[in-house]
């Protein structure tokens, strides 16, 4: 392998990249755009139902409820009118319960009573239903009735890691998506460089120099990986992703960069011009982006999503940056990513080699 030839090809390609207005513009625009959007996204998850309440004599019940369930936050109002007025003005909570002053006595006597639930259009149906249910249950027990069922204990009821108060925010779950789009821009830039070289036959000119086909392939692979990796690292740094597990994150990003370089070499080998490069790149992008979308939803991704080449990268980014997972916890996703990396990289190299040798 001719190191000086590889260096010469890489420096030529870097110059070509910096002269390409579209990709240079898109790289900086993308970086600024994703960083801007990231800091606008919510960095916490609202797990609490904020509710106004107007009541007399029910303090003990509500204090216990708030203490037991972290998902409820109460604001007290002197009267039903004050509660309604606060909700109407938009300054107060979006939902409120107004209990009549004789609520406790009425339910204890078995006499019927009525509780008013004020709701704005922002309150989803399940919250309206749940608050109505809560009032009915409260009245049922306050009337001295026995519990209908025996509830499991707190330790029996909870399955899996308790993430209450420690949910991954939209900022954290969107990280893989941003990294992905950044990697895609660099993949398209590499594909365009390769396609232009093939179309203009520059590669033939390079091959009459001491540089061999292998030198050309290595140069493209190194350039693509460095371009993608540097952009991804810069983006992750700007969105504050590096913490205790930076090494895992860097390793995952390196593997991700090699993965998209493989696809970039492939797209560059089959694409003829700018538009066909975009076309091929988007064809690769659609399946690759699915795991990044899947992570936005709660629960485990379906098996077919977990089989996607980018699943390991997405899991590693979220695991390392949001939950502080290390190499041990992320061994599975990183192995998955590594296998796809090798496959995509060699497929890309093979496609490019065939193209270069043919012309």
């Amino acid at each position, binding site marked *: 392998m001719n190191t000086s030839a590889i260096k010469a090809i890489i420096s030529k390609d870097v110059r070509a990249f910096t002269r*390409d*207005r579209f990709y240079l*513009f898109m790289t900086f*625009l993308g970086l600024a755009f994703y960083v801007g959007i990231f800091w606008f996204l919510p960095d916490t998850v609202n797990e*609490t139902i904020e509710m106004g309440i107007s009541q007399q004599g029910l303090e003990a019940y509500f204090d216990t409820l708030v203490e037991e*369930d*972290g*998902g409820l936050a109460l604001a007290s109002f002197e009267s039903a009118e004050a509660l309604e007025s606060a909700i*109407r003005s938009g300054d107060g909570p979006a939902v409120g319960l107004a209990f009549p002053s004789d609520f406790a006595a009425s339910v204890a006597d*078995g006499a*019927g*009573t*009525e*509780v*008013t*639930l*004020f*709701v*704005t*259009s*922002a309150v989803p*149906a*399940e*919250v*309206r*239903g749940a*608050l*109505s*249910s*809560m*009032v*009915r*249950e409260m*009245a*049922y027990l306050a*009337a001295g009735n*026995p*519990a*209908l*069922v*025996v*509830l*499991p204990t707190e330790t029996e009821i*909870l399955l*899996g*890691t*308790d*993430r*209450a108060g420690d949910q991954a925010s939209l900022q954290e779950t969107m990280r893989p998506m941003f990294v992905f789009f950044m990697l895609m821009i660099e993949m398209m830039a590499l594909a365009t460089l390769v396609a232009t070289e093939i179309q203009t036959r520059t590669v033939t000119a390079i091959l009459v120099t001491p540089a061999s086909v292998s030198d050309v392939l290595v140069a493209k692979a190194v350039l693509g990986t460095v371009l993608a990796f540097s952009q991804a690292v810069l983006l992750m740094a700007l969105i504050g992703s590096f913490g205790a597990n930076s090494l895992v994150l860097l390793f995952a990003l390196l593997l991700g960069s090699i993965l998209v370089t493989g696809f970039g070499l492939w797209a560059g080998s089959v694409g003829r*011009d*700018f*538009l066909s490069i*975009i076309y091929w790149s988007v064809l690769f992008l*659609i399946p690759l982006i699915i795991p990044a*979308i899947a992570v*936005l*939803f*709660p*629960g*485990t991704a379906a098996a077919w999503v977990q089989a996607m080449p980018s699943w390991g990268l997405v899991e590693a980014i979220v695991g390392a940056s949001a939950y502080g997972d290390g190499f041990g916890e992320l061994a599975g996703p990183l192995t998955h990513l590594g296998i796809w990396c090798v496959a995509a990289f060699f497929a890309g190299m093979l496609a490019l080699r065939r193209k270069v040798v043919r012309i």
Partner: protein
Amino acid sequence: MIRHIFRKDIALGPRSPLLLWALVLPVVLTLVIRVVFGSLFDSEPRLGIVDLGDSAVRVAAEDLEGISVSVLKDIETLRAQVESGNLDAGLVLQEGFDDLVANGDQPPLGFWMAGESLASDRIILGVTALDLIRTTSGIGSPVAVNIVPIGEEGLELSIRLLPLVVIMAVAIAGTMVPAASLVQEKERRTLSALLVSPATMRDVLAAKGILGVVLAVVTGVITLVMNDAFGQQAWTLVLAIAIGGVMMAEIGLMLGSWAPDTNTLFTAWKGGSILLLFPVIFTIWPTLPQWIAKLGPTYYFLQPIFDLSVNGATTSDVLGQLGIAAVICVALLPFVGMAGRSLERRLAGQTRPSPVAN
């Protein structure tokens, strides 16, 4: 002559990735918005039920509003689904559960919560399950809840995103297809060849423009149909899309005449498209000052489309805005002509033989 050029573009169109992209984009965007935005920001608590008998609780749960209920066959699957966070809670109804409750036997309740579930969802699912068990057992509560709605019902985010999908469909097809077609003709030098035939620059621009308008109307209509937004005023909607298509095609022709190559065209599009797209921001966030949206030319066909599709507006309600959009289209025509003449001059400069030294 316009017809011949138009037919050539239609015949060669399917080979262009951009044309394919223009047709596929509305479908992809609609799916993304329906799937991602439809459920991501309005996600419902998910309850799984295993009914080992024939419980009325399960039947009533399936009718719950705002809670996604799945009925599973066995307890192991339910437990695994809750543990992995695919369900927020799981409820096991043992055989004869309803009778045991009604008889006051206080049966143990098989109920699990996912560690990954939100604290608010835990409250919702917990109290809802207990209330369901009580009401289906015929045991009343000494209280009635009177729900008082306050304020008007807002539109869902997926509906507010409709103008974004429409503008993307109309703009990509209407602007980018004629612009890219013109630029490619310049790059391949086929435009110069066309101009030595009886075809004039006006014919070329008209043919490319018509192609853009036709595609914009087709993709716009497809988008509205896919989003169930083709309301009562179908012909007015088509008219609004057609006016939008004309405006976008005119912008595409100016852009295509100016851009020397595809890279420059895409760079200009990526950088400048915000000027065309920004009115949709004001539909997505209706609390923003709406007068700013009126500064964008695309507002005058997007707002009528939104009003006709979603707000139940009639033709007479939107005629004023559509009139302004039509005036903008007419006002853009001289600029399209100027761009065409400028392009013609540049082409003439390129094809003129260079002076030969004697």
